[in-house]
């Protein structure tokens, strides 16, 4: 069991809040203070932008050997998703079985319990993704 960590207080993890560089138009998630393409000239220029949570599976895996906090969830499904606004994120795909996943399938984000520190420890919430056409 651990004490709560700093990111529990960071809203972007729950809201999919990114940032956009007004100079080159690149969208970042998590939000960046400076654009890694435009660098110096982008300081103080970055605009916060809420992401739609919609995207496409670039690749995926089924995890069988997990870290301690995730051992009870095995097997679970991870994917890298290219969001419609540009940036890619890693997340779990929920409410599916192994055969449902494929590169190119469309997904959208949902708010879920991600893990917990032991039976009486802190519960960690965040986004997961579900297939657009499941159930």
């Amino acid at each position: 069991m651990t004490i709560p960590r700093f990111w529990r207080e960071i809203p972007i993890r729950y809201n999919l809040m990114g940032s956009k560089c007004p100079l080159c138009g690149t969208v970042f998630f998590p939000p960046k203070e400076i654009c890694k393409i435009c660098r110096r000239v982008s300081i103080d220029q970055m605009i916060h932008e809420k992401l739609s949570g919609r995207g496409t599976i670039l690749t995926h895996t089924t995890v069988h050997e997990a870290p301690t906090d995730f051992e009870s969830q095995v097997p679970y499904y991870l994917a890298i998703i290219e969001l419609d606004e540009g940036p890619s994120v890693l997340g779990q795909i929920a409410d599916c079985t192994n055969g449902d996943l494929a590169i190119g399938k469309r997904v959208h984000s949902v708010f879920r319990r991600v893990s917990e520190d032991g039976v009486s420890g802190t519960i960690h919430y965040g986004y997961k993704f579900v297939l657009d056409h499941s159930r």
Partner: protein
Amino acid sequence: MREVAILGTGITRFREIWDKSFKRLGIEAGLEAIQDSGIQGKNIDALFIGNMASGLFIRQEHIASLVAEEVGLTLNNTPAIRVEGGDAAGGLALAQGFSAVAAGIYDVVVVGGAEKMSDLPGASIVETIASSIDQEWECFFGATQPSLWAMMARRHMHDYGTKREQIAKIAVKNHNNGSLNPKAQFPFKVTLENVLSAPPVCEPLTTLEAAPISDGAAAVVLCSLEKAREYTSEPVVIKGVGLATDSLALHDRMSLTTCKVTSVAAERALNMAGVNIKDIDVAEVHDSFTISELMAMEDLGFVEKGKGGEAVDDGITKLGGDIPINTSGGLKARGNPLGATGIAQAVEIYHQLKGKADSRQVADARFGLTHNMGGSGGTAVIHVMEAV
């Protein structure tokens, strides 16, 4: 800048070693290297140690002082420096030792790499290995190092038609090589059937495609080429060093099927050495997973992007092939004590270039290359070596 030579090497056997401490492993490898090189303790100007996670594995930081004390280097208060960069720690330590000698700051340095992984339960080891990927945006969601490589494998198969069997054959090849290496953790062969039918780690990869949990240490003695000639008529020279860094998180990188750190670091090291990749006779690459070696074959430039699978089928990376890779058995069969790996790779190439690799010997090896990587591709270190 001065030319830098490797004067001697030492390595422990890699395996789960229950009766030896971190300190003991480091000393064994270090003393073997010092004896092999012919130098004396009083000649050592500095000690560099590559180590990834001693704080998490054995709850000990400040290990440079710990090891220096045990080998008697505290008598002269010899500088000892730990270097960390995920599982590229060993290669980075070698690069730091090289730079210090090349710059003329020190004449003789010992560079060691060590890791003691087996003192934790299995799931905690998975977590500790995952400390070299992004905690906040990967591990938080249940990602582990194998899960990231599995996703790269899946995408490689999708984009280039790479076959599952082609990827798995790399484990068979590395076990064949390991069976010829008395220091290997797994000195035995496996069949393609064994690899494919082993339990899955993260689909599509199986447990027989992942480097094992290992304890172990390796060390090399570096000195200026000029000084090396006082000790040997056939020194091995580090001709080129290339380092590169990319985003820590896999999803932040430009490609899921290329490790750009590898191609960039290779270009830097080869340019510095004035050597073409086609001139390399033998290479040790970072096969933390079978797919890692397949992608490294392409990213280093041994084969075109997307042709790695075919090249495996053609057997070009086997002993006796055009470019033998991981003659030691690689991370897969020799073992992968994280911080020790980059140094173990240099030890193997040193033996190959000296003609001392016994039944694993690559005939007339003149140029060798080591490729050490951190995490899922956040860091890469390449060394190009030549027997002169």
